Every structure is written in C-alpha cells, then in structure tokens.
C-alpha cells in the first residue's frame, strides 16, 4: 500500500468513528419547536415556550428540546424545519399558521419524523394539527366588554384576516351584543403578528375613533400599554399582560399548551402517535382566563364566570343562533349552532362589526 492512501484511510476512520460516537450520544430523543416570534414577546411564542419547558421537565433526560425563534413565515421557515428534521428530531412543533405549506413539504421528505402544526388545517400521515378555541375565551370577555363599555364602541387590533382571527372578532361581538345591543365593533388590520409600533398606532387610532375597550389578535403588549396610557380598558392576548397595563387589563386570554405538548411527546416516545386534529378550549384547559381586574363589578364577574362554566360544560355555544351576518343574511337560525367546518372557514363578519373584511 503506498503512502498516498493514508489521508483517505484517516478520513474513513474519522467518519466511522464519529458515526459510532454519534449514535452512542443519541440516547435521548429530540423534540423541536419552530417559533414565529421571539420567546420574549410575552404573548403567543412565550406560551409555546412554556409548553416546551413543560415537556423538558416532564421527560428529563429522555428528551432534548430545542427551539428556533423569530422564524419568518416563508422560505426561511422551510429551511429551518428541514434542518431540524435532518438533524434527527423525532417530533417538531411548528407554531404558526404560515408554517403550513413548509411543514407539509418537509414532512413529505422525512416520513419518519412527526410534525405538529399549530392553527393549520392540512394533515397527512405524519403531520397533525392542533389549535385552541381562543374564541371561547373571547366570548366570555365579550360579555364583560359589553357590560363595561361606556362609549358602546369596542376596538379590535387584527393581524391577518384569517378564519381564526375572524372567529375571535365574531365571538366577541356576539357576546357583547347579547348583553348590550347598542355595541359596535371597529377593526384595524395591521398585517403583522408582531410589530409593537404598528400595534400601538392601531390601538391609538381605534381609541381616537371612540373605542374604550381594546381587544387584539397580535402578539405584543403594545396595545395594552396604549390603553393604560389613555385610561381605557384592554384585554391581554395569549398571556397575562398585567405587567404592562396594571389598570387597563380587564383580563387576558391565556393559551396553555403544556398538557397537549407533554401528551404528544409521550405518544411519540411510546410509538402511539397518530396524525390527528385537536381543537381544545376552555374545557380541556388549552384556553384559560387571567384574573379579573378588581375594578370589574361583582355582577359582571358573576356573568363572566357563568358564561365560562356554561361553555365548559357545553350548555353555552358561542356560535349558537339566532344571529345575522353583517350583510343581513342569516348567520345561524334559532336553535342551531355553527359547526366546526363552518368555523374553520369563517370569512364573514357578524352584525355589529363595522367595516369591510379584507378578503
């Protein structure tokens, strides 16, 4: 054997050695999380990361959780998801609606990896979806808003006109109108999930247009800060934002993913994972409400609690008729309620919401 083969031999030994070492080190399973915003947004992504920490705590050494934050929806997300899949992750949670197609694309190429896509609606053998019925929480707070508003105008900072956001607007409006028929809802769309400057500006515009309660479906606490500064009410989104608005926050709609994430990780570890669609709400604990502001009168709190319990035990359905769509046609007739399919594709406003829904 001549000397010139030595580098090749060394290379082969190195590769073999690292493969042996590598396989010895992967005694733990990897679970990955792809976030659309920063963990410190104190809202949507923050709650998902709490779920990730719950998984890490529940399984200790058996599982290694990793995450990538602030991944923009689009080609960048595909690269990140593919990298995770190629890196040996067994289970990957993609936590934003806009990750849908990238997730499906990568899932096709990595059939052995399980994917869980949040707030999506397309599933395959190895892609499951999950979401929370945030609108149930908004319905409860809508009742509070209907009672607490003095100007009868409620403002809503919307991100993108997707069904999930429209459901929230409609549920809140139906609840508010059920206790206060004179209420109107104004919506400002900021075309982003997270831009504190824009969200704050939208809140200011809504307040200047007469709103005295601000709801939001965006991820930063900026609208609450604005509400606090202007002396109006607001509702926290995805997590308790009292720190930013001690006086203004009526309550907050809290996402709680801990239980679901631990359960799904367990399913992957013991091999029982199947692609599924989970849509939990107040009952299953995926949606919760923060403490009520002490300034809310006792009878309003009682109404809110009754509504919440009613949704939990099934006696109250936020989308039960009768109610009309914004254009006057029947939304749901008396005695009936909208089914999940209609909810998932909701692209119309109910009566009481001002303005045109961008299509």
């Amino acid at each position, binding site marked *: 054997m001549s000397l010139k083969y030595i580098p090749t031999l060394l290379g082969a030994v190195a590769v073999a050695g690292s493969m042996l070492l590598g396989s010895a080190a992967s005694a733990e399973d990897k679970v990955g999380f792809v976030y659309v915003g920063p963990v410190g947004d104190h809202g949507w992504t923050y709650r998902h990361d709490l779920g990730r920490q719950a998984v890490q705590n529940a399984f200790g050494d058996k599982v290694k959780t990793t995450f990538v934050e602030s991944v923009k929806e689009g080609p960048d997300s595909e690269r990140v998801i593919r990298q995770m899949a190629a890196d040996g992750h067994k289970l990957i949670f993609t936590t934003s609606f806009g990750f849908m197609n990238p997730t499906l694309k990568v899932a096709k190429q990595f059939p052995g990896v399980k994917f869980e896509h949040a707030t999506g609606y397309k599933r395959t053998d190895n892609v499951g979806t999950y979401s929370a019925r945030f609108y149930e929480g908004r319905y409860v707070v809508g009742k509070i808003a209907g009672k607490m508003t003095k100007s009868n105008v409620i403002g809503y900072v919307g991100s993108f006109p997707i069904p999930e956001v429209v459901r929230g607007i409609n549920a809140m409006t139906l609840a508010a109108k059920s206790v206060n028929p004179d209420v109107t809802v104004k919506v400002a769309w900021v075309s982003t999930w997270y831009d504190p400057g824009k969200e704050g500006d939208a809140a200011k515009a809504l307040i200047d247009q007469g709103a005295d309660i601000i709801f939001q479906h965006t991820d930063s606490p900026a609208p609450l800060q604005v509400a606090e500064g202007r002396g109006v009410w607001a509702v926290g989104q995805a997590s308790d934002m009292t720190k930013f608005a001690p006086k203004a926050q009526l309550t907050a709609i809290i996402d709680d993913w801990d239980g679901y994430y631990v359960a799904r990780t367990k399913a992957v570890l013991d091999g029982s994972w199947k692609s599924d669609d989970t849509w939990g709400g107040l009952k299953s604990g995926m949606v919760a409400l923060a403490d009520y502001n002490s300034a809310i009168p006792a009878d309003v709190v009682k109404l809110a609690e009754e509504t919440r319990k009613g949704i939990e035990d099934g006696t109250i359905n936020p989308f039960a008729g009768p109610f009309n769509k914004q254009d006057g046609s029947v939304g749901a007739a008396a005695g009936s309620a909208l089914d999940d399919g209609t909810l998932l594709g909701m692209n119309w406003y109910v009566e009481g919401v001002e303005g045109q829904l*961008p299509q």
Partner: protein
Amino acid sequence: MSGFEWIVPVILTVITAATPLVFAGIGELVTEKSGVLNLGVEGMMLMGAVAGFVTATVTGNYFLAVLVAAFAGAVMAFLFGILTLSLMANQVATGLALTLFGVGLSALMGQSFVGEPVDPLSKLNIAGLSDIPFVGPILFGQDGLVYLSFVLVAGVSWFLYKTKAGLILRAVGDSHDAAHSIGYSVIGIRYLAVMFGGAMSGIGGAYLSLAYTPMWAENMTAGRGWIALALIVFATWKPGLVMVGAYMFGGITILQLHAQAAGLSVPSQVLSMLPYLATIIVLVMISKDQSRIRKHAPACIGKIFHPAA
C-alpha cells in the same frame, strides 16, 4: 367624537410617528452631504434603541439613556467609517452589512430585556399653556425629544448653509478633490459627519424604545431606517423638506389606521400600502427632473476618496 375633536389626537400621534424618521433622516442627511452614503441607518437605529432601553431600565435616567443611545449609534458609524474611509471599502456594501450587523447585535444584546416594560419618556406639562384647547397639547405637551428634533432641523439647516464649517462639509461632499487640494482633511470631516449621522440615528431608535412603544422588541424599527434613507432623496437633501417628508409619511401611516377604524370600505391591505406608495410616487416625480437632483445631490456621494498624491 364629532366635529374636529379627533384632529388633535391624530396630530399628536402623527408627531410621535414622524419623530424617529426626523432624527434618522437629518443625521443621515449630514452624512450624505459630506459625500458618504451610509445605508446602515436601520442597524444604527436598532443599536440606539436597545442601548437606550437597557440604560433606561438599569439606571432609570432617561437623559443618560439618550446619551448612551447616541453613543451606540456613533460607535456603529465609526466602525462603518473605518471600513469605508480608512480601508476604502465599497460604501453601499458596507452599509448593508452594517444594517445586518446592527439588527443581529441589537437582538442579541436585548435578549434578556424583551418583554420588560419601562415608563415612557415624560411629556412636558406646563400648567397653563398645555391646557389651551387644540394648540396646547400639540405645542406644549410633547416629550423632550420631539422638541429636540425641531431644534435639530433648524440647527442643521443653519449649520450647513450659514456657517463656514457647513460650507466646508458641503464642499467635501461636492468635490472632495478640490477640498483636499485647498487643504481640508476630507477623511477627518467625513468621519465626523458619519459619526454625527450615527448618533442621530441612535437617538431616533431610542425614541422608539423609550417614547413610542416603551419596550424592547427585536427589529422594532420595522423598516423605518430605509424610509428615512428614501426621505432624504425625496427631500433633495434639504433639511426642512426631510422634516416635511417624515411628517407626511408618519401622517399617512396614522391616517390609514384611522380610516380602517372609521370603517372606510377600502381593503386594509391597500391602506397599509399607502405610505410606501406615496413615498415611491413622490420619488418618481422628483427623479423625472434629473437636473433638480443633480443640483442638490452631493456630487461625490458614495465615491471613495483617494487623496491625490
């Protein structure tokens, strides 16, 4: 809200929206007048935002926070200066790199401060004057940095056109070879101009994190640095027009949100586009008159200076 009551809150909101653009725009204007094109405005603004925010959170001293923000912006600009003025790298490429660097570094520095609120910069509140209906809050109820922005525009305008030092700066920007042959230190003057631009961008960024939305969030400038760069061209390098442009852009941004809130049935996506569309339209209109641009643009902008023997 009936009648004209809504005008005052809208004007107040427009002022806060325009002020960061004014700071960044005026700073970069001085830089460009000296012949340097620094595209790193976005990165410098973010560094100023995070530096100012961290200082305010840790010390509670807002004056110090603004100073530190200006310093942070100036340091970033100094780095840019070393690369482009001393090492003679391409200004456009270096500026873009500076933006990316600033975005990343600010995100890294601000990691442990995300989601922490801070008290907003306090607004002036002169007992009798601030309460005058309509005019009171607008003229006498702003925070310190807004007043500083007005002083800045007036000061820079006076400096550039009424002082010898300003004349020298403009000479360096219009013909660096001639200025060099007279004996002025082209590189030295450009360093100062670049660092001033960085400091102002830093203050503009600090305004975002201390007054506009008193928190730190990654990438919170959301493209305002690029808008400031466009505004300078839109204003044909005149300080007063930079301010006009900033207020126009800020005004349209706020008004489109109001239009949505008022229920105007124009699709929100179209309304969101309006500020950028308006900027593009005005730029196109101005560029049609090539002679106007040539008259006002610093002739040596972006050109690397090679001292002739």
